[in-house]
């Protein structure tokens, strides 16, 4: 990128400077990134390799390092989308409206553990958890209550459910929208539908084996996008965030999501679709963790890797197929129950990383999230934190403002190179379902858990209030409690639905679903029928359990 003679002069000057530097003392610290990339004391044009057009380029043009769109935040700001849900659909609806009135620009449904696992509230194994960690969405009536008076034709909605319950919950949403008179082919939104979230990010309770989860995920992608039932929907959001939170590093985070994306793409190609039929609707969800520059380099590297992967491996022709678009969540695992107000500062810095890295949408965590679901007050502070960045800092004046920093460009290259190597390692194990069923991914997670524990216990990673300047566990901050009556309310909701629906008709539809599952055909059309007739999430999932079986993940300790 620079003239040879100029670089020679620079090299001489740098050597001279380094001689002086060597005589100085450095503090006692390990100068490495969070993923343990060694970092030099100074970066100069000598560290920049390759051609500007090939490596960096222009926003909205390959290799998309500087952003997927030509205008980025000068066109419009990122979507402010807070992951939100608690108690009952009615209470969650109230919270969504509150945040919307305060400037939120997208919705995201955090569901409870029963909805995640396809368990009805009448099941004693999960009953105490109704609404405790998210909103319960067990039947179509819940979706009506969740979105009441919310303009779902104008504002995009993210449904955070995974492959096992994706078809029943999303079909309830689409049926609800149809009954309200909306044209679902125009609906905007995202389904997380991420196989790794419910297997390694979070362990599944009585879900089916990974090969079936992969197929269910692809059924949904196929039915919404190339079959054009809901073509504007993002049918999957590869959620590196959830496993990054376990302790894997930035390199592994991208390795996991890209390896997973390739397994899904290969499945859809095997079904006879062309890459450009569907790939531009696939989306990503990454973490904004503690290492400021490494995270920004990660986002830039991710865009470049994706463009190369789509072009070189899949021969994508449509330029939109090369554009990597992503949501970001700030790092929940960086928050502390000790001195919770410091969490606001942590979240603001992480939010800034995401924005400097060109995210399309952002969730900022609430300061009380180390101990409970967000209170209304804490959620508002989190929303205002993003608004400080968007409205007060003027960082949106120019696109990809850190490009050209010798350090950032060098680190982007370094992250990219390491991710390609890690992807090769995963792909040697096999497709993503194989990496799960063989236990390989569980060992990677286990190793990451312990590495992080050791780093925290020996002080190599700092957590203020915990391993540096420790203080006792906070008893001052209000603890937000979810509605204790949620169990009763949700059991009643299901009872009423069961009284109202035509059980004979539903039984016939569920029999058809059994048949579809046995033949391994796309489940979506029949699940649409079933949930319209009032099937609950568990009733659909029980058929998966019956036909596909229940899987015990090979956890490693």
């Amino acid at each position: 990128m620079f003239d040879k003679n100029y670089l020679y002069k620079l090299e001489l000057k740098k050597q001279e400077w380094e001689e002086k530097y060597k005589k100085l003392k450095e503090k006692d610290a390990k100068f490495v990134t969070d993923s343990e990339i060694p970092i030099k004391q100074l970066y100069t044009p000598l560290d920049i390799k390759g051609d500007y057009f090939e490596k960096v380029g222009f926003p909205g043009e390959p290799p998309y390092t500087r952003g997927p769109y030509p205008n980025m935040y000068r066109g419009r700001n990122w979507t402010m989308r807070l992951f939100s849900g608690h108690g009952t659909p009615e209470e969650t609806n109230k919270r969504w409206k509150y945040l919307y009135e305060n400037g939120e620009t997208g919705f995201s449904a955090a569901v409870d553990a029963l909805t995640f696992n396809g368990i009805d509230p009448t099941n004693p194994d999960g009953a105490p958890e109704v609404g405790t960690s998210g909103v319960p969405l067990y039947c179509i009536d819940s979706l009506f209550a969740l979105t009441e008076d919310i303009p779902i034709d104008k504002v995009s909605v993210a449904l955070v459910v995974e492959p096992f319950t994706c078809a029943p919950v999303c079909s309830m949403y689409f049926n609800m929208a149809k009954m309200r008179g909306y044209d679902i082919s125009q609906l905007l939104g995202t389904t997380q539908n991420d196989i790794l979230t419910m297997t390694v990010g979070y362990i599944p309770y009585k879900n089916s084996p990974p090969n079936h989860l992969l197929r269910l995920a692809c059924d949904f992608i196929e039915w919404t996008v190339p079959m054009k039932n809901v073509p504007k929907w993002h049918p999957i959001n590869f959620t590196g965030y959830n496993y990054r939170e376990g302790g894997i590093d930035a390199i592994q985070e991208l390795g996991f999501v890209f390896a997973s994306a390739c397994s899904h793409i290969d499945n859809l190609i095997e079904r006879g679709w062309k890459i450009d039929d569907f790939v531009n609707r696939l989306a990503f969800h990454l973490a904004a963790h503690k290492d400021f520059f490494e995270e920004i380099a990660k986002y830039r590297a991710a865009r470049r890797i994706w463009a190369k992967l789509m072009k070189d491996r899949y021969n994508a022709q449509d330029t939109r197929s090369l554009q990597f678009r992503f949501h970001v969540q700030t790092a929940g695992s960086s928050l502390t129950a000790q001195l919770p107000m410091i969490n606001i500062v942590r979240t603001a810095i992480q939010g800034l990383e995401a924005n400097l890295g060109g995210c399309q949408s952002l969730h900022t965590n609430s300061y009380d999230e180390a101990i409970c679901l967000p209170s209304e007050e804490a959620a508002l502070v989190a929303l205002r934190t993003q608004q400080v960045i968007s409205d007060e800092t003027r960082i949106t004046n120019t696109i990809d403002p850190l490009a050209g920093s010798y350090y950032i460009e060098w680190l982007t290259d370094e992250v990219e190179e390491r991710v390609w190597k890690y992807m090769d390692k995963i792909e040697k194990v096999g497709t993503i379902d194989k990496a799960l069923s063989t236990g390989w991914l569980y060992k990677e997670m286990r190793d990451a858990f312990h590495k992080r524990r050791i780093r925290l216990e020996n002080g190599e990673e700092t957590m203020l209030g915990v391993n540096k300047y420790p203080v006792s566990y906070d008893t001052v901050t209000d603890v937000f409690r979810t509605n204790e009556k949620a169990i009763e309310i949700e059991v009643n909701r299901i009872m009423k639905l069961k009284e109202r629906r035509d059980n004979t008709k539903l039984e016939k539809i569920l029999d058809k679903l059994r048949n579809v599952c046995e033949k391994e055909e796309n489940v979506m059309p029949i699940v649409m029928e079933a949930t319209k007739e009032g099937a609950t999430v568990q009733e659909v999932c029980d058929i998966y359990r019956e036909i596909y079986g229940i899987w015990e993940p090979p956890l490693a300790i």
Partner: protein
Amino acid sequence: MTDKKIRVLMSKPGIDGHWRGGIVVSRAIRDAGMELIFGGFQNVQQIAEAAIQEDVDVIGLSIHSGAHFAYTQKLLDLLKERGVLDNIMILLGGVIPAKDFAKLKEMGVANIYGPGSMTSDIVEFIQTHIKK
């Protein structure tokens, strides 16, 4: 005083899948030379059954769902009914607000470990309080 190792059952009551805490503590317990029985997802009946059959000294419950009172009370009642509550130390870890510690201890939980706890403290507590 015998040479018998301290036996610990690690369990996840309910259906919430946050698993990092349970694994991290399990490894620390095993590394400290204790006998670890990893129960994974178990309902309270299964926990009580496993605790009795395996003759454990400690039950560690990993709860991140906010439903810690409900599951803990059910388990304590069941262990009491089976007449083994006095012989088993109950420890609780997970996303549990400090405000709830006093009530949980009153119910019969020996100690609670919230976010930011160090595994070395958990190991030390067990080793100090279980006399073999």
